[in-house]
């Protein structure tokens, strides 16, 4: 079971907000520091490793830029959203970031609540209210990439790409 402090975000959070053009060609560390700089300045300092994001519809809309990698690098434990953009979901799989589509999550959590995710029972709970939700299932093959560090370690094992020096 993973317990995480909740940060609330609204609908249609796009990847430009998570990875602004000003750091697009920069290092992973520079990119992580710029997350939500335009819409929520200071968030990267206020959040702690192991926190969760709870959001509304179409999280991760827009550009393919590797925003899921930045959230993973910041130590965000998981994302709950009413719906997740297809391209952002794929990047979450491939960068090893746990992203769950979970109808009702926006109403079920307030900022600062604790969100408990139990991968075994595939349930999300709010211990303050007792609310329990079931995220959309994720196919086994994709879930194992998401929980196992993403696709690069897998590709290294298969001899498709070289290990990072």
């Amino acid at each position, binding site marked *: 079971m993973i317990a995480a402090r909740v940060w609330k975000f609204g609908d249609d959070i796009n990847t430009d907000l998570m990875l602004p053009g000003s750091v697009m060609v920069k290092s992973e560390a520079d990119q992580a520091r710029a997350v939500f700089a335009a819409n929520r300045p200071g968030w990267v300092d206020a959040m702690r490793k192991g926190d969760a994001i709870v959001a509304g519809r179409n999280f991760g*809309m827009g550009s393919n830029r*590797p925003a899921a990698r930045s959230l993973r690098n910041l130590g965000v434990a998981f994302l709950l959203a009413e719906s997740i953009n297809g391209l952002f979901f794929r990047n979450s799989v491939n960068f090893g970031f746990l992203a769950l589509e979970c109808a009702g999550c926006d109403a079920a959590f307030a900022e600062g609540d604790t969100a408990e995710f139990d991968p075994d029972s595939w349930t999300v709970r709010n211990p303050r209210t007792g609310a329990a939700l079931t995220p959309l299932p994720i196919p086994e093959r994709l879930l194992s990439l998401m929980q196992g560090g993403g696709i690069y370690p897998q590709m290294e094992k298969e001899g498709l790409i070289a290990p990072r020096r």
Partner: protein
Amino acid sequence: MGMNIAEKILARAAGTRRVAPGEIAIVEVGTCVLTDLNFLPASWREVLRMRDPARVVVVLDHMVPANEPLTAAAHTAAREFVKRFGIARFHDVGRDQGISHVVVADNAYGLPGTVMVNPDSHTCGGGAFNCAARGVGLPETLYAVTTGQTWFRVGETVRYDLEGRLKPGVSAKDVFLHIAGRWGAHVNQNVEYGGPGMANLSLNARRTLAIMGAELSAEFVIFEPDAAMLDYVRARNPAPFEAAVPDRDAIYRERRRLALDAIEPLVALPDSVVGNSVPVGQVAGERIDQAFIGSCANGTLDDLAAAAKVVAGRRVAPGVRLIVTPGSQAIWREALAAGYVATLAEAGAVVTPATCGACVGGHMGVLGPGEVCITASTRNFKGRMGDPSARIYMASPATVAASAIAGRIASAADYFAGDLG
């Protein structure tokens, strides 16, 4: 039970008789495009094996010519990669330069009836040529390059039946803004375009409409094949292909009629493209600092022609910058031959080399604090084109050009008043 176009192409690429919404299809990738962003030091991983170099296209596009050392390093890595694997279709800085989606369309690399991937979200533009094309992000393109495969979750499809003909001065961008304003996002859905009015949309107009499908958050955006499309592809790519047509009893989530005659020029207000469209008149008079025409969506020859028609014999208003970025150097040269470049430059526009440039807030047109821009490009998100306090309106190239001349947001209607539909 019949299949729509996206389902047919995915089933064929998966080597199966049929696919249906909700299933995961593991498919053969016909064309895999890599861009300069793949090769940035933060993202690049050394590839050891490649399934088939003939299926790979490499295009340097986001920051060309290089705007800083990290970008230049990415370009160097791309050149070494292309050499090592003997990739013939390489678009470096120079004559063959352009935005990947534009280059792919200019050369008909994405064949009808096949699957194409590229990291970039606007890859769906390949659907203008009946190709199931989709942005899949940086890691997935490396997987596709090495294995020749990828996966898709099959989505439901919304079908648009186009009818009639656009009025003079109304463009594909206005059609998109109409759809985005009236129907909103199409998350996890495919979009299929067809119907009798499709023949009245130029291939360039279809390119714009297919590219902008990314802003509907659609998965695949695919046009039905017609003679104009197939002739264009055959003239540019000798490879055999079989276009995909929908079955008569294909299943759609919804079928919507779209009367092209009824569409008026629109503007999207800042910060969101979807559900944010208003008639030009509603924002006419708003001050602007910059006007931009370009990107994979609006750097076609039709777009440059519309801009040139508006500014011909006039001057960009004092205090306003008009920046025009053709989608590829091939289009740049066509625009030069047609006289558009001279017309634009004489009016005071800066015509840049082909690149993603200002659209992605990269270079050649980045916005400063508090500035206002009207853009004919792909996105108007907060901070998209530079400082987060800048405000970005989105409209057609004609409306953007008319605004640059007026020095404030303005309708282009008068410039097209004498034209026949």
